[in-house]
């Protein structure tokens, strides 16, 4: 300590003094200070914690992946816990071929992509309207946004199905949509047998177009908070330059909110990708459309093959199949996530969701 005497504390002076000091003094100063020790202990603790929780999160996926390559003999072998002794890719093969993974992949991709696009755009529009314009009823509309978020999906399951199934039967429900459709029917006679949207994608798109899709309330909320943080001067200057509100929105607001929009898009896409609520209620005949949510069944050949095994083996095998299916469902999402995860964090960080 004595050797380092600093008279005028310039950076260079300190550096020079430090470099002139003998090596052991330097080392002592660096490594035997209380602060350094505290720092090291803190960092080690933090690292252990993070690695531990990372393990907790990843363990189910790791174990699922390891189990997905097990063969039937591994399941009978009590010594096999996670590492397979006779690895096989049969399960993947069954799901890819018999459960129609590729077909499901294409349909789900197209549906999820378009739905996510629509939802992102509509939610952005509504959120912008709520964030930047003062009008009577703004608070009420926002209250409805929150209400759609708070009422559980399951609550509306039956009536939503009914709504889209018997959409033209005025006498059952007095809803505006069926009135409009009834008028169209009277003028044109198109819907003679009544419009029922069973096994059809239309209800999904209708819900998305009106900002009522899965967790769209959350998207509107997030985007609203983001738009509130956008300075008003931007719009004002655009307005002075003669740009209409809609044009301002599309050519100024949307480009600057790309990170946030990507975040919302990823959420919308992946929640639609793994959706089993809407596909279940709108598609009572799953064979007509195949989605990601329909590929996890046990194929017929497996059922035939496993007929003579004990029930516990059967159960273990079907669990393995389901696990494999869920890996295959998650895989495209994980790939997308790896490329875009920085954007998610960025988008939410910039949103400034501050009350």
């Amino acid at each position, binding site marked *: 300590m004595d050797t380092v005497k600093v008279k005028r504390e310039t950076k260079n002076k300190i550096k020079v003094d430090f470099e002139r000091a003998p090596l052991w003094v330097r080392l002592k100063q660096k490594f035997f200070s209380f602060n350094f020790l505290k720092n090291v202990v803190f960092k080690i603790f933090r690292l252990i914690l993070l690695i531990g929780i990372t393990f907790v999160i990843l363990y189910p996926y790791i174990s699922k992946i390891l189990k997905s390559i097990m063969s039937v003999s591994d399941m009978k072998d009590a010594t096999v816990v996670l590492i397979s002794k006779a690895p096989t890719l049969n399960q993947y093969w069954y799901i890819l071929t018999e459960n129609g993974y590729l077909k499901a992949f294409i349909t789900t991709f197209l549906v999820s992509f378009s739905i996510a696009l629509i939802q992102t755009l509509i939610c952005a529009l509504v959120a912008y309207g709520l964030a930047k314009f003062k009008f009577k009823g703004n608070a009420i509309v926002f209250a409805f946004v929150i209400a759609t978020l708070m009422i*559980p999906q399951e609550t509306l399951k039956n009536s939503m199905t009914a709504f889209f199934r018997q959409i033209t039967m005025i006498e059952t429900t007095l809803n505006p949509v069926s009135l409009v459709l009834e008028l169209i029917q009277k003028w044109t006679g198109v819907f003679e047998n009544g419009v029922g949207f069973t096994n059809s994608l239309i209800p999904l798109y209708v819900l998305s177009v009106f900002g009522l899709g899965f967790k769209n309330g959350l998207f509107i909320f997030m985007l609203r908070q983001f738009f509130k943080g956008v300075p008003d001067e931007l719009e004002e200057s655009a307005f002075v330059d003669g740009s209409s509100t809609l044009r301002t929105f599309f050519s100024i607001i949307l480009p600057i909110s790309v990170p946030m929009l990507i975040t919302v898009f990823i959420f919308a896409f992946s929640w639609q990708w793994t959706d089993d609520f809407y596909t279940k209620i709108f598609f009572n005949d799953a064979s007509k459309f195949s989605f990601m949510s329909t590929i996890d069944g046990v194929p017929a050949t497996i059922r035939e093959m496993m007929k003579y095994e004990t029930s516990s083996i059967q159960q273990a095998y079907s669990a393995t199949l389901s696990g494999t299916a869920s890996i295959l469902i998650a895989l495209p999402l994980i790939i997308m996530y790896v490329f875009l995860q920085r954007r998610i964090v960025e988008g939410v960080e910039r949103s400034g969701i501050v009350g």
Partner: protein
Amino acid sequence: MSFDTKNKRSFKATSQIVGEEQSYLAEPIALAGSEKIVPSEVVVEAPTVSAPEVAVNEPAPYIPRKKKKFKLSLTGKKALSGWLFCLPFVIGILGIYLPIVLKSIEVGFHGSMGNNPAFTLDAYKFVFIEDGQFTTTVVDAIKDLIIQIPAIVIFSLFMAIILNQKMTGRTFFRAVFFLPVILSTGIIDAIDTRISAGAIVEGGAMDDNTGGETAGLMSSLDMEMLLSSVNLRLTLGKTTIDLVEIVTTLVNNIFEIVSRSGVQMLIFLSGLQSISPSIYESCQMEGATAWETFWKITLPMISPMILVNAIYTVVDLFTAADNRVMQGLAGYGGMFGDKNPGNFSAGIWVYTALVLVVIVVVALLLRTVVFYQRRD
């Protein structure tokens, strides 16, 4: 063409308004000298109305007209475009959402999905009296919630603070921590639940084949044995709360807690990012320790986020399709099964009402401690 007529119209309208306002202004000043409130109102209104009028008189005749129309109709225009932006959602709410909600409530009072106008309370009778399971399950779910909300909120705050620090591998850890937001939903979640349920039925082999379970990490029995010598009990009146049990439940549900705190973590992270670094700087200059800084700066500044997250957690936990009440209600059946849709509707609306009550209670409780930074 239409543009021109619009311009003229709005110009006329605005000039009329200005004229009226002026005549209105002139009167009260002359008449109501005795009342003090009226003049003060007039004084407040006067600059906003008369300012453009003054500006109008100075420049050449055709420019001010444009300006005048422009300024006065701004509020109305803004309100109109606000409505236009919200239009899809408003139509959706009125045309689709409200009818669905009303129908759903109605079914509970009619007892069936069909066109049956008879008003009965049978479904509610069934839910509250005949089905003994419902009330107990709901009470249990709320009890669980009381433990889980603070656990999730505190955990996500803690992790957000750690993930906000600069360190190597931060991107990786963040990516892993937010992975459940993307992956633990819908069908993947359903498969996990099914697999783990199957494995438990299978014969208590908790650690194999469990997609979502990580009970193999630390068995609750080990924990209980470890802590059995410590008698941590909290007595509140007649009820005793076993703290050891709470801890072991939390440890066993660690995966559940971690996977349900992704969105909350994101919200906290964004909140942490929005705290101005200069506050921390000045704290450091005043010699505050990290501990003090956390309690005096970070926590108050992040408290609105705690409110948002607590509510989000309530909604998320309550509306999860795999929670016990939802599972129980699924047993009441849907509309096309042979089970009674009226009972389902009644049960789920009672439950939804309870959720709303819980949300209001949580909001009111947290509101007393939330600190809002004054914006300038």
